[in-house]
């Protein structure tokens, strides 16, 4: 498993190298077929030096990322009043950032490539963010979804895995495989919770990677037509056993209400059940996950406040406060040394355990160019996934 997971970043790096040379000659978008991953990025200038702080800062964030507990101190320190807009999905975040009314977004990997390629966000000058330093955990630096053509576009906030949650009163034996949610003969048919988003197709792909190696899937976000079809078939098979397709708003009551006893979930949602009988596990096939990063709007009206915010939230204590509040691994590993409580939190979320996160495929926007480096086929993009998703739910 580790080997193939390492293969992807290497292929990506190689492809990016090709992209750099490719872009200088044709300057166009993906030229498909001759050089793998070529992504043309609009030329957006980077901030060279900081100026005086503006008066306010408008942030689009996941629920729990911007709270008075740490935002008020930021306002007192810098004079930047923080206005928060909570978004429920990555797609919503992308749309909100395009209104031009927001300075910062806490983008997940499935949104960031779209924002970068459309020119909605600007490259970041990490020298102006002293807290973005050596303490940032290894697995969150220089990922494809926030670093492109050698430019950093995102300052990492935290990461987490899409775990398998189960009701230990019903599922008495700890499941070690996703087969309990995918296989026809699952004893929990009719009580299975599935995530309601096209990106959930990647979860099916990860299962197929292990159980149908003939399909040749090496990256769940790089599926050709055949592979997407196989994943869709698996999802259709699951559809008959699904109790509920959940959103963050329905996940908790789906489990506590007894409609679901096993299924994909987030650590933060499992915690929100406030009931220890709901347990979580990362199955042996690995899992999807997310990695979030602050991204700065191209036309930001308050870039100085935004830089100040990115620096402030990268500090060990603030970054840790966000991670603890949301229920995820913090980006700044130094937080884990601050206290026993911090240490316990980091251990629980495997914050600095790269071996754990090697089993996690962070959300990435599927695009026409195969992210696994294949050049002989055209991969399916996120719109293909969205269309396929509608057929799953019939």
């Amino acid at each position, binding site marked *: 498993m580790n080997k193939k997971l390492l293969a992807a970043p290497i292929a990506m790096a190689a492809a990016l190298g090709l992209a750099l040379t490719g872009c200088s000659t044709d300057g166009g978008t993906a030229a498909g077929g001759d050089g793998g991953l070529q992504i043309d990025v609009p030329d957006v200038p980077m901030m060279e030096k900081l100026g005086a702080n503006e008066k306010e800062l408008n942030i689009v964030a996941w629920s729990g990322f911007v709270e008075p507990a740490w935002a008020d101190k930021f306002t007192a320190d810098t004079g930047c009043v923080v206005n928060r807009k909570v978004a429920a999905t990555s797609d919503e975040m992308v749309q909100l950032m395009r209104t031009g009314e927001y300075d910062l977004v806490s983008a997940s990997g499935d949104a960031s490539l779209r924002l970068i390629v459309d020119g909605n966000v600007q490259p970041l000058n990490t020298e102006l963010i002293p807290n973005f330093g050596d303490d940032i955990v290894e697995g969150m630096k220089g990922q494809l979804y926030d670093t492109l053509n050698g430019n950093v576009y995102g300052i990492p906030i935290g990461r987490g895995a899409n775990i398998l949650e189960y009701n230990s009163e019903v599922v008495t034996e700890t499941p070690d495989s996703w087969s309990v949610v995918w296989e026809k003969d699952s004893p929990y048919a009719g009580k299975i919770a599935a995530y309601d988003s096209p990106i959930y197709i990647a979860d099916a792909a990860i299962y197929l990677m292990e159980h149908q190696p003939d399909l040749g899937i090496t990256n769940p976000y790089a599926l050709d037509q055949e592979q997407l079809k196989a994943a869709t078939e698996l999802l259709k098979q699951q559809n008959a056993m699904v109790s509920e397709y959940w959103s963050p708003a329905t996940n908790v009551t789906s489990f506590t209400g007894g*409609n679901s006893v096993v299924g994909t979930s987030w650590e933060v949602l499992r915690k929100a059940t406030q009931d220890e009988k709901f347990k979580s596990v990362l199955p042996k096939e690995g899992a999807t996950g997310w990695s979030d990063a602050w991204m700065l709007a191209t036309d930001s009206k308050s870039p100085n406040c935004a830089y100040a915010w990115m620096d402030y939230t990268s500090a060990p204590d603030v970054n840790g406060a966000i991670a603890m509040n949301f229920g995820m691994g913090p980006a700044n590993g130094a937080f884990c040394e601050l206290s026993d409580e911090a240490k316990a939190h980091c251990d629980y979320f495997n914050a600095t355990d790269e071996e754990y996160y090697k089993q996690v495929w962070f959300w990435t926007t599927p695009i026409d160019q195969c992210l696994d480096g294949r050049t002989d086929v055209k991969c399916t993009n996120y719109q293909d996934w*969205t269309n396929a998703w509608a057929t799953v739910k019939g």
Partner: protein
Amino acid sequence: MSTQSALQRKPRPISTALYRHPKGRLASLLTLPMTWLVGVYILSLAIMLVTAFWTTDPFTSRVKPGFTLDNFAQLATVPAYGMTALRTLGIALAVTLICAAFSVPLAVFMSQVAGPKLRAVLAVLVTLPLWAGYLVKVIGMRLVWTENGFFNWALEPLGISGPGFGVLTVTLTLVYLWFPYMAIPVYTAVAQIPPNLFDASSDLGARGFRTIRTVVAPLLMPSLIAGSIFTFSLSLGDYISAMYVGGSTQMIGSIIAQNINLNPPLAAAFSFVPIVLVIVYLGAVRRTGALNNL
């Protein structure tokens, strides 16, 4: 005398001008509503519908103007979309029928049988759900229909368990949401029926049910249809019920919601489906002549 009275009369330039220029009169009356109707209402709808012929950049999901029928071709060729449209149509019709079936006897009871006090209490009960937010009501329905929820708890002694989340629960939830929109017009119509018609019907030997069928129902048709337009079209467009109590049920609105950020042209094309269904429905209603009495 006549000159004096002419002098006494105060000049009224605006009314005089409007009196002299009937077109100006018309314009001043209609400008405000037409600005709203055309500028805000029709224009935004038209722009949205035009998007259905546009394309989306598959990578950035940015909408690009152009002309393509691909979005409509997808609606026609993908079986899942057709199935979803049919399912939604079935749910909307069921909701409408159930609402109507409950409204008529309730309205007759309220206006003809119940005393003034009971009538007021019933009126409050019918409209009570309108006082709460839509989401609150849907989540309330979610909570009572969960496996460990109220209905399963109440039905357990009888050895029955509720339907769980699915098409049936979505239908019941939509009935709960839209019932007042059917019950209120029907009640108003029944209340306007002269009481002596009931006496006459009774004198001629008709019992309760026959009176409803032959006297009340024809008089109620227009308001039933008015109510059905609400329950039918509101159910067609709903997606939040499917999300909260649908389990794995997908409705037209779910597909529109799924695509609204990623593929707005497809969402716009799909929004033609309920529009067409409502137009067909209104056409069918018009043939009955019921709309003439509204």
